[in-house]
């Protein structure tokens, strides 16, 4: 599942048309869906983004990508250029955020600064937007960090105010579509179960579940462990495997 959060309808309409998304909700936030794709129009500004994203992403499965696509200003980048965001700064925020750059991504990446008022000075060589920080801060509460993506289209700059900008997110479609197909598929993690005859403490169950999760994510075969007849033997076998194949997680 991919959820796209876009601030305004102007940015969203090329995607709605291209993917033939159908409106499934009008209020409190317009939501459009089709198969494994959903798009929510959040409204401009960080408060609107937080409200809409919390309302929408809370009902999604944990194995979903959450993507923010939108306009951003830049001092010198050409209009219509598309960037993936590699760090998000905000004045007064406790710390910056660093979105993961996906495995096969060839999109150029750039830092983003989120501002509360439309930017006119563009004092740094960064992307400027109004929702990126709020988007990431909200999304990270619901999905793993590696599944949060921000793609920005340069729409304005110091000599090209947004009102007179001819850029449409439609120009970003040919860049973003092949790129979105390179996103790795997400598996649905299953909580491990243990035979009732295995006497494991709550802590042992949590530790075993953690090791099993890492091993599954990295494709390590745990079949020898499950041949154990007792919980203690299982834990010993699991420890041996994790120490040899996953030393950093053991």
């Amino acid at each position, binding site marked *: 599942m991919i959820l796209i959060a876009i601030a305004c309808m102007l940015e969203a309409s090329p995607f709605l048309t291209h993917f033939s998304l159908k409106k499934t909700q009008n209020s409190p936030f317009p939501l459009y869906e089709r198969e494994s794709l959903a798009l929510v129009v959040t409204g401009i500004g960080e408060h609107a983004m937080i409200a809409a994203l919390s309302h929408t992403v809370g009902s999604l499965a944990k194995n979903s990508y959450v993507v923010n696509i939108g306009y951003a200003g830049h001092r010198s980048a050409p209009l219509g250029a598309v960037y993936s965001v*590699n760090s998000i700064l905000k004045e007064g925020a406790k710390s910056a955020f660093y979105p993961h750059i996906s495995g096969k991504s060839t999109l150029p990446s750039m830092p983003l600064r989120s501002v509360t008022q439309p930017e006119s000075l563009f004092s740094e060589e960064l992307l400027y937007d109004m929702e990126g920080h709020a988007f990431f801060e909200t999304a*990270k509460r619901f999905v793993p*960090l590696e599944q949060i993506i921000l793609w920005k289209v340069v729409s304005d700059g110091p000599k090209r105010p947004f009102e007179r900008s001819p850029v449409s997110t439609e120009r970003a479609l040919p860049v973003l579509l092949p790129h979105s197909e390179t996103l*790795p598929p997400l598996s649905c993690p299953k909580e491990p179960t243990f035979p009732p005859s295995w006497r494991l403490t709550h802590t042992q169950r949590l530790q075993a579940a953690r090791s099993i999760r890492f091993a599954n994510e990295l494709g390590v075969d745990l079949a020898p462990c499950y041949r154990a007849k007792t919980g203690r033997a299982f834990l010993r076998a699991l420890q041996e495997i994790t120490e040899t194949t996953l030393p950093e997680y053991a």
Partner: protein
Amino acid sequence: MPEIIYIEKRVQTLPRTQAFLRRFSNPTVIFCDHYKEIFNRRNQNFRLQKERPAWIVAQKEGSLVHPIPPQY
């Protein structure tokens, strides 16, 4: 595909950092205040992370050399 290198701002000008960066032809360099903003964060997807591991250049801190205990 360019390598991703996170560099703490306080070490970006050090000669060792510059020498390290010269090993890469066209890296994506991302500056951070502290390596813990990136490393070992909560709520991670390890499979996706392993598909594109990144470098972190950071400075060790705290007492790196401890005095020998008097009883030793």
